[in-house]
C-alpha cells in the first residue's frame, strides 16, 4: 500500500478510536487497520471458501483419482491424467459438446434478434407499452420445471397446441410429427422453448440499452439530415451494442450449463440428440458413478466457459470504452 494512503487510513482509525467509548477504543487500538479489515470481510470469505472454493479444489483433486461416490469405503488411487484423457477421447463427450454448441448458438442468435426487435418496438413508447412489457416478461418469471412440463403438453402430437398451430399455418397433419420424439426436430424443440422463455430477458437488457440513448442525440442526427436507417445503424446499434453483448454473455453462460428444462422436456433423447454437456456430466457422476471422470469433465467444461467468457469480456470492455 502507498505510504501516504496508509498514514491517512491510520489517522482515520485513530480519530474513530478517539471518538468511541474508552473500553472499545482500548480494544480496537490494539488491532491494526489490516486486522480490522480482515475481521470485517472474514464471514464472506469463510462462506465463499466453504461453499465455492473448497468443492472446486476437491473436484480438481478427485479428477486425478478413480474415486467413486457410491463406494465411499473403497481405496482411492491416483490415476494421473487418465480421466482427462478418457473424457477427451470419448466420442460421447464430443457429441454432447456438439449438441451444446448447437443449442447455445441458435438460442443466442434467436433470442438476440427477437429480443432486440421487441425492445426496439417497445421503446417507441406507444399506448400501453408498459402493459405489453409486463406481458412479454411473464415467461421469464416461470420456473424452468414448470416450463419444461408445460411445453411437454404443448408438444404432445395428438392433443398439443403447438402441433395444431403448425398444422393451421402449414396444412400438415398435427399428429404426423413429434417435436420431442424426432431426432431432427428435438434439438430445435428445446431451442424453441428456451427462446420462448428467455427472449424477454434479452429484451429487457436491450431495452435498458435503448433507453440509455438520450433523445437529443437523435434530434441532432435528425437536424444533421440522417435518415432513420442511418440513425439506426450509426447511433442505435453502436450505442446499444455493449448492452446487447452483455445479454449474449449472460445467455451464453446460462445455456452452456442448461440442465433442468431440457431434462424435463426430452431427458436428453431421443437417443442422445439433446443430451447437453451438463446432462452427460450428471449421468457420468450420478448414474455411472464414475466420480473421478465426471470431475475431470466438469473441470474441462469450467475451463472452457471461463476462458471463452474472459475473452468475451475483454471484447466487451473494448466496445464499452469506445
Amino acid at each position, binding site marked *: 500500500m502507498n505510504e501516504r494512503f496508509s498514514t491517512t487510513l491510520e489517522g482515520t482509525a485513530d480519530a474513530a478510536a478517539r471518538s468511541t467509548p474508552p473500553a472499545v477504543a482500548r480494544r480496537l487500538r490494539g488491532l491494526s487497520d489490516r486486522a480490522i479489515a480482515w475481521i470485517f470481510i472474514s464471514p464472506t470469505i469463510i462462506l465463499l471458501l466453504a461453499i465455492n472454493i473448497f468443492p472446486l479444489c476437491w473436484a480438481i483433486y478427485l479428477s486425478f483419482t478413480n474415486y467413486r461416490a457410491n463406494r465411499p469405503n473403497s481405496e482411492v488411487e491416483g490415476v494421473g491424467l487418465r480421466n482427462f484423457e478418457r473424457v477427451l477421447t470419448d466420442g460421447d463427450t464430443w457429441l454432447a459438446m456438439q449438441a451444446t454448441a448447437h443449442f447455445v448458438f441458435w438460442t443466442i442468435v434467436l433470442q438476440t434478434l427477437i429480443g432486440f426487435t421487441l425492445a426496439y418496438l417497445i421503446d417507441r413508447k406507444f399506448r400501453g407499452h408498459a402493459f405489453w412489457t409486463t406481458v412479454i416478461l411473464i415467461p421469464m418469471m416461470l420456473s424452468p420445471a414448470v416450463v419444461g412440463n408445460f411445453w411437454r403438453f404443448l408438444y404432445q402430437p395428438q392433443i398439443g397446441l403447438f402441433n395444431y398451430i403448425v398444422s393451421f399455418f402449414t396444412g400438415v397433419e398435427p399428429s404426423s410429427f413429434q417435436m420431442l420424439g424426432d431426432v431432427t426436430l428435438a434439438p430445435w424443440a428445446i431451442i424453441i422453448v428456451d427462446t420462448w422463455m428467455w427472449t424477454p430477458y434479452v429484451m429487457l437488457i436491450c431495452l435498458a440499452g435503448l433507453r440509455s440513448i438520450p433523445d437529443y442525440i437523435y434530434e441532432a442526427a435528425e*437536424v444533421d439530415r440522417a435518415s432513420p436507417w442511418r440513425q439506426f445503424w450509426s447511433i442505435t446499434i453502436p450505442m446499444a451494442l455493449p448492452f446487447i453483448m452483455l445479454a449474449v454473455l449472460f445467455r451464453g453462460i446460462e445455456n452452456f450449463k442448461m440442465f433442468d428444462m431440457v431434462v424435463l422436456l426430452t431427458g436428453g433423447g431421443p437417443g442422445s440428440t439433446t443430451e447437453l454437456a451438463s446432462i452427460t456430466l450428471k449421468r457420468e457422476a450420478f448414474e455411472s458413478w464414475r466420480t473421478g471422470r465426471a470431475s475431470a469433465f466438469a473441470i474441462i467444461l469450467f475451463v472452457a466457459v471461463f476462458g471463452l467468457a474472459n475473452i468475451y469480456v475483454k471484447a466487451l470492455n473494448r466496445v464499452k470504452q469506445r
Partner: protein
Amino acid sequence: MAEVRLESVTRRFGDAVAVDHVDLVIADGEFVVLLGPTGAGKTTTLRLIAGLEKPDGGRIVIGGEDVSDCAPSERDVAFVFQQYSLYPHLTVFENLAFPLKSPARRMPKDEIAARVNKVAAMVRIDHKLANRSTALSGGEMQRVAIGRALVRDPSIFLMDEPLSSLDAKLRAELRVELKRIQNEIGATLLYVTHDQVEAMTMADRIGILAEGKLLQIGTPREIYTDPVNLHVAARLGHPHINLLKPGLLPCESVPGGARTIGARTEHLEIRPSAKNDANARVDWIEHLGDQNHLHISSEGEKIITLADPYAGINPGDAISLSLKNPLFFDENGHRIT
C-alpha cells in the same frame, strides 16, 4: 445563409402556451440573441425553427419558403444543443463529418476531409481530430458541437445556450471566438441564452422573451437605454436596476402617472454630504477590484449601485443621493417617455 421569418408562431403544450404569437425576422447574416428567464419559450422557439416541434399556429419561412410542415432534415438548419450532443462512439473527425456524410449530399471523401479540417481549425480543435469525443473536456466538446454545425453551411444556425455548461473563463473565450467566426462567414445566427453578458456582447439585435411573448427586439443599446417596460429593463444591467417609488429621491421632473422609477448606476448621483442634507446611508461595500458595489439604504429602501473604489466612500457614511434622467414606468409597468 438566408432570411428567417416567424409569422405569429404559436406553440402550446397542453394548456400552457410556450410560444405566443411571436413575430420575428432574422435578416440574412444577422446575429440575433433571444434573452429571457427559464420557461420563457426561448428553446421552444429554436426547436420550432429547427422542426423538432410543430407550430400550433402561424408560419415559419426560411429563405422565402414556408417550411412550417417540413421535417428537420428538409429545412437546412444547424442546431447546437445545450448538452454537448456529440455522437459518443465516434471520433472528433467522424462527429464533424457526420452531417456531410448524408446520402442526400453525395459529397466525395476528400472534400469532406477538406471541410472538416477547415472547420476544425476554425474552432481550434484540429489537434484532437482522432480523439474519441468522450475523451474531450467540456470546452472541447462544445467546440466540436459548434464545428459540426459550421461544416454544414446551412440557412441558419440555431444555438441553444451552447456556452451555459462551461466555466466562466472558457465561456468568455468561446464567446469572443463565436462572434469572430460569425463575422468571418457572415452567418445568420439565432442564439438563445439567459446570460445578459452574452446577449450584450454578441448580438446585432436582442429579443426579450417572457412567458412566450416577444416583448421587445432591438440593438443591445436600444434594449438597455430604451426598454419598453419594467420586465425588459430588469433583464439587462448589472447590478440589477433599482426600482424606486417616486419621491424617494430628488429628481428634476417626474411625469404624471409614473408609479415606478427605474434607476441604474448611471442614473444615480452620489455626493458625500454633511449630516443635515443627507438622504441615504451606505450600509456596506462589496469590493470587486475594479469597482465597488455600494449597498445603500434610503428611508428603508435598499439601493445597489457601483462606485469608483477610489472615491473615498466608507460603510456608514451619510451621502446625498439624487436621480439624473432615470426611467419612468406607469402602473402597468409600461415605460413613460
